[in-house]
């Protein structure tokens, strides 16, 4: 797929072209937001396949509801809101099916953790680190999904407290406290890992 040059397109221009049914504009929208939305979805669902499906569904919804979007919020906020709502609904459905809270993260090669190793490291210690990170990521998956949603929107997407509050329809103070709680929990989980890293 060739990249669409959207340098001169702001959200208003993009929206106007989208409403005219311009396919290039839609492709530009997908190219601009799919990775961000995937990351958000993954942060909540912790499942790659489901996250990819959710991202597809988000774009279908956007395509179907473009004419009803009243521009009261930014286009990106609208997209994130649809994503978060779909993820939380998916989570509810998932829980109803009595499935386990989270799934392990799998690499295409079958290993189960995100690759965070340094090439210069000793293979044995790299493996150990990998194993440790796997456990940590599983633990992060045990954080409540709303806390993870806020964490991913802040840490990865760089949204402000106001934007997150608007998106999740919660108070700014709630964003601040949930984020604080999530980070504290992460610090506890990662404490030994960082201590070992500092000691090494």
């Amino acid at each position, binding site marked *: *797929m060739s990249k669409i040059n959207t340098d001169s397109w702001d959200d208003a221009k993009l929206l106007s072209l989208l409403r005219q049914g311009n*396919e290039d504009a*839609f*492709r530009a929208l*997908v*190219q601009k937001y*799919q*990775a961000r939305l*995937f*990351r958000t979805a*993954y*942060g909540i669902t912790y499942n*790659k396949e489901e996250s*990819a499906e959710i*991202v*597809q569904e988000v*774009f*279908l919804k956007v*395509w*179907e509801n473009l004419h009803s979007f009243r521009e009261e919020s930014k286009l990106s906020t609208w997209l994130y809101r649809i994503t978060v709502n779909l993820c939380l609904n998916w989570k509810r459905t998932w829980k109803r099916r009595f499935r386990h809270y989270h799934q392990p*993260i799998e*690499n*295409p090669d079958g290993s189960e953790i*995100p*690759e*965070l190793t340094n090439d210069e490291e000793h293979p044995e210690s790299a493996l150990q680190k990998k194993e440790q*990170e796997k456990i*940590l*990521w599983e633990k*992060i998956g045990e954080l409540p999904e709303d806390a993870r949603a806020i*964490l*991913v929107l*802040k*840490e*990865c997407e760089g949204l*402000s*407290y106001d934007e997150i509050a608007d998106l999740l329809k919660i108070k700014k103070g709630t964003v*601040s*406290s949930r*984020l*604080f709680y999530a*980070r*504290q929990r*992460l*610090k506890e989980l*990662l404490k030994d*890992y*960082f201590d070992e890293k500092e000691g090494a």
Partner: protein
Amino acid sequence: MSKYQNICDSMLLSRFFDRELEPDEQTLVREHIKSCPSCQKMHREHQAVSDFFRAGMDEIVSQIRFDSLETKILEQIREKQISWQTKLKLFFLSRRIIIPIAAMAAMMFIFFSLTVKSPVSVAGPSALITSFTGDISSVMFLETPESHQTIIWFQETF
């Protein structure tokens, strides 16, 4: 400094880290961190957690083939467009069939209504000419309007 009784507050540092404090507060906390080892440690931990989380998420995202995801999305959109166009086509196709059938029916109606002769007698009230009532029966003579046909009506009374 008087604004905060205890500036070494992790909640406050969290907001500082996210640049969610007012500019003057932001400066105040920044200056404080420079001289406070405990806040420096908290800030470093904060940064480490953030880096770990971001790196992990970036790694996951890097494993996804977004080209194929984009293709899938566009295919779905086209499918939707096609199904909408198909519906539209069917609508116009049905109009192409229904309109000639309706026209044909209208023409047949006009043709038959013009060519078929009107009935000899016209429905309407008949005129009573005369009537007799005896011991064993009653008889009435009636005449139809326009065609002037005579109807004899007989009824036994016993």
